[in-house]
């Protein structure tokens, strides 16, 4: 170990383990995490002979698919055996964390596990879940999540893609009438033949080309030429189409159909915390090793961590990484409480969760991206090297600011909720606990 870093560890005046246990949510979790990481990583399957950044775009993608398969096999054969699916959970932080050893950029299976599977869980009826979920979890099928159109946003009623129901065959006919109606950013596309992986007749799929990040996911365009899918394949938990084509609204609350989206936004706060924690770990350790300048003549170069300007850059990041993690834990607890309420038929807290997850997703991903960039700047020229991993972390997190609700759009959604809350408080009606301070403000006219 580098002597400067060893010295730093010797002078630390708090119990590091204690903090690790808190971050992991308890000693038991820390022990389990370490064990899982040992199983997943000690075999060396995550290592690359040639650095990923030195590969061509096609080679990068192929290598990522190779490692996705390897990692999935490790999860299925070894980790699930060790922990059991119940306790591990496919979206568990440990799985997410460990996968980063395999993918410097992104896993081609990310959308399948991060969006497709949760959507099946949230939007399918029990019968549909019984059919699709085992196949999806066992990776017999790989799903995608095609929403945004090339020329349009996500306003569902404004989209150009059509799905016309044909009661004679009990099928939906999906069609992309214009270039602008093509789906864009779909990931891990699997609308292909099971054996040959050729696109099915009536399906136009392809890669959308190099991006700022996310280059190892099969993000693509998707067009339909009167492509038919069976009626039963529509996820019908919250909205149903009967055989004769009658539309039946099942959900008691319109926002229930946004369940997957809210779930992903909640998870993204943790994602922002995790990636910032990685960036600041890199920058602080580097700053303990790196020496620079000669503030006092004849004296050796100080560690750059001793400069207050460097401390200002870095300690904010440490504090924010912890803060985001705590906020993310709180948001997750709120999310699970709201889900419990929903199962019991109470939807009162859903608008608040929607607003909270919107603004926290916006702020955490935005702050995290900015602070990761600050970490890169704190590492000077060496931080500019792709091998520092800081540019990858930045490009990954800056994507999270954009997808699943852009920063400004989400703030506007929260604003709508806040203004309504103010009006409620003004009218003397109760407001949700997180906004209780508004009542005092209204009363005091401050």
């Amino acid at each position, binding site marked *: *170990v*580098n002597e400067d870093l060893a010295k*730093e560890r010797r*002078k*630390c*005046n708090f119990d590091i*383990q204690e*903090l*690790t246990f808190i971050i992991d949510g308890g000693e038991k979790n820390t022990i389990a995490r370490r064990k899982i990481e040992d199983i997943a*990583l000690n075999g060396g399957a*995550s290592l690359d002979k*040639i*650095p990923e950044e*030195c590969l061509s775009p096609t080679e990068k993608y192929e290598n990522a698919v190779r490692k996705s398969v390897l990692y999935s096999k490790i999860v299925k054969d070894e980790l699930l055996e060790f922990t059991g699916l119940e306790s591990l959970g496919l979206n568990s932080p440990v799985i997410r964390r*460990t996968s*980063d050893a395999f993918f410097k950029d992104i896993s081609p299976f990310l959308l399948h596990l991060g969006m497709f599977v949760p959507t099946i869980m949230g939007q399918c009826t029990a019968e549909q879940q019984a059919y699709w979920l085992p196949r999806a979890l066992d990776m017999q099928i790989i799903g995608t999540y095609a929403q945004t159109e090339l020329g349009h946003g996500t306003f569902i009623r404004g989209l150009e893609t059509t799905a016309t129901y044909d009661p004679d065959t009990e099928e939906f006919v999906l069609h992309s009438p214009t270039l602008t109606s093509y789906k864009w950013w779909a990931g891990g596309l699997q609308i292909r033949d099971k054996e040959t992986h050729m696109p099915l007749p009536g399906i136009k799929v392809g890669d959308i080309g190099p991006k700022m990040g996310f280059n190892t996911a099969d993000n693509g365009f998707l067009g339909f030429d009167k492509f038919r899918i069976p009626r039963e394949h529509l996820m019908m938990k919250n909205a149903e189409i009967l055989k004769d084509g009658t539309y039946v609204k099942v959900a008691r609350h319109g926002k229930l159909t946004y369940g997957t989206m809210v779930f992903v936004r909640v998870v993204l706060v943790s994602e922002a915390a995790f990636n910032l*924690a*990685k960036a600041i770990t890199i*920058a602080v*350790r*580097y700053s*303990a*090793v790196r020496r620079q300048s000669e503030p006092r003549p004849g004296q050796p170069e100080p560690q750059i*961590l*001793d400069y207050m300007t460097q*401390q*200002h850059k870095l*300690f*904010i990041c*440490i*504090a*924010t990484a*912890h*803060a985001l993690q705590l*906020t993310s*834990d709180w948001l997750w607890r709120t999310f699970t409480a709201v889900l419990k309420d929903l199962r019991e038929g109470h939807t009162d807290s859903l608008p608040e969760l929607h607003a909270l997850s919107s*603004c*926290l997703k916006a*702020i*955490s991903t935005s702050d995290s991206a900015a602070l990761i960039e600050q970490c890169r700047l704190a590492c000077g020229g*060496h931080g500019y*090297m792709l*091998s520092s*991993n800081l540019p990858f972390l930045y490009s990954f997190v800056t994507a999270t600011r954009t997808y699943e609700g852009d920063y400004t759009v989400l*703030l*506007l959604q*929260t*604003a*709508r909720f*806040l*203004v309504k*809350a*103010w*009006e409620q408080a*003004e009218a003397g009606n109760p407001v949700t606990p997180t*906004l209780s*301070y*508004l009542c005092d*403000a209204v009363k005091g006219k*401050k």
Partner: protein
Amino acid sequence: ASWDGSPDGIIKSFQATAAGKISACVTSIRKRVKSGMTFEDAWELTTHSSISEADIISLQQRYEEHLTLIRPNAVGLVDAFEHRDEHSSISEADIISLQQRYEEHLTLIRPNAVGLVDAFEHRDEILNSTLGAYDGRVYERLMEEALKSPLNAEPVNQSFHKYLKPFFQGKL
């Protein structure tokens, strides 16, 4: 809100700021609607209130958790100090006093900086970084990775023979 420079005071000042911003937004929306603007167009003016709200929740959570789990500490305070600069409206004297306390806290955190990031327990394989590995062999790792570059596979890259040499010789 009572302002005493404490984390609790900072949170209260944020709440006051957010409430003020929301109030201003509501007033502004009503004025604009009265003057003929559509209700929807008026939403555009409300983003700042959302930012404040997110900051409050985030600050409150981290402060409460720090109180119950870790004890009030410099890390939580540094974060709160940082935020007050950006959004709160406080007096010049408050800012000078907070700036001094902020700098004192940076010094307090300094000995624990490496410990605080070690606590995340990110294994080297997960960090994937030449600069951030646990052993701190920064320069050795930078060089090891550099040597893996395909450009180092041969002593002279073929572009020299194809392009540079003819160019130097005026044969292009």
